């Protein structure tokens, strides 16, 4: 059976250094895949390749049975959405951030939808006009993540989005993730160092020194 995403012997070399080597795994539709590994092991590099922000130097990656090279990068990135480790916010206000996905699609900003999205992540709907400089770390992270889901992607890749957050903020983000997966049927790829998140992972992939070290499914 064809998986949603298939990686086969994916490798990445830069400046004569091997950053990733022979990474192979598949991701099924609506699956939640958690990826972990020591700092510098190549997790972010892997997902940047998966979201076509950079190119692998070897191996193949297919999405819905077609090589990711054959997609229009812009359309592909709207389907396979990557939320950065330590994202920066755009412009001046929260609205500037939530509006960007509408702007790039030449669509009018949906204020109601944005307000609903904010309240769903425990932010007041009047946050829309709040200056980004006034947000706390956890609030920034939530706003950044909302940008990725104003239009639902097929796959959402989250790179250490809970790192450095307190328990309350983590809980809110976990709730967001569950909702994206259960209600909105989004496939999730979660990168984490968090022990709790690793313990609760349904499927845990471990990267070590740029290589796949473990791929464990649990119930």
């Amino acid at each position, binding site marked *: 059976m064809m998986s949603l995403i298939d990686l086969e012997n994916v490798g990445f070399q830069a400046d004569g250094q091997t950053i990733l080597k022979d990474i192979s795994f598949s991701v099924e539709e609506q699956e939640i895949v958690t990826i972990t590994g020591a700092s510098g092991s190549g997790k972010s590099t892997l997902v940047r390749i998966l979201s076509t922000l950079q190119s692998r130097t070897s191996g193949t990656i297919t999405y819905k049975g077609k090589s990711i090279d054959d997609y229009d990068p812009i359309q592909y*990135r709207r389907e396979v959405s990557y939320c950065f480790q330590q994202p920066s916010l755009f412009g001046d206000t929260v609205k500037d951030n939530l509006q960007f*996905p509408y702007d*790039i699609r030449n669509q009018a900003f949906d204020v109601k939808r944005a307000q609903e999205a904010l309240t769903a992540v425990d932010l007041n709907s009047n946050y829309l006009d709040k200056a980004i400089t006034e947000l706390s770390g956890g609030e920034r992270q939530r706003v950044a993540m909302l940008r990725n889901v104003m239009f639902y992607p097929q796959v959402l890749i989250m790179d250490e989005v809970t790192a450095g957050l307190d328990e309350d903020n983590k809980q809110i983000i976990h709730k967001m993730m569950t909702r994206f997966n259960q209600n909105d049927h989004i496939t999730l790829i979660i990168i984490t160092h968090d022990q709790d998140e690793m313990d609760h992972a349904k499927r845990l992939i471990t990267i070590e020194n740029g290589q796949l070290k473990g791929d464990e499914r649990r119930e």
Partner: protein
Amino acid sequence: MNSSSLQISNTSLILAAGLVLIALYIGYREKLGIDRDMIIGVLRAIVQLYIVGYLLKYVIKVDNIFLTVVLMLIIIFNAGYNAMKRSQGIPNTLWISIGAIFISTGVTVGAMVLTHALKFIPAQMIPITGMMASQSMVAIGLCYRNLNTNFHDERQQVLEKLSLGGNIKQSSMHILRESIKTGMQPTVDSTKTMGIVTLPGMMSGLIFAGIDPVYAIEYQIMITFMLLAATSLGSVMAVYWSYKGFYNREDQLVLPTSAPKKKHH
């Protein structure tokens, strides 16, 4: 106009050269290490200006359209080449710069010739082309520098916009706007202070040559408008044509290789 009153004797020139010694002395005292650059610069300026002076004298005398056009093109090419040198490795900037300067100069000078504000004679065409092309060159050079700095400093933001599915233009727009603004800034600034802080060279020249100041000002106003148009046109074209050099065919951000890399902390 009494041109004999504008004669400068060789003795006065040599005396004026003495002024350079002041600059050299300061450079030496303050250990600025620019003595060599300054001496070379002064010598170059003297040689270049003399060559240009005699060349202009000749061109103005023969008053040949073909020769005038060739000289205008040489000025534009030169300006483009110098703008390119400020691009620190952004691809294709030689042709982009020449194209942008050619069009910005061509449109402004062309419009003035068509409306008979200027005559297509070498004595007018060459200095005006020089003014437009050089200001355009400075603006474009600033644009390039700003593009380089901002694509480095705001790399993260560009990547995020790309990852959200923005195309390369949408993902760079904030940088493009900023760069165009930076390119035009000197022209806009000098426009604001014109007549108060600066008496522009062209106007000063005309007044110097004994022309009615009001008439000189009218000329200067025209030149100012032309400069604003030329720098904005040049900046917009150079920025919109060159930013694509920061991306590859997969719409990935790739910074020009020879651009200064940020040191790792």
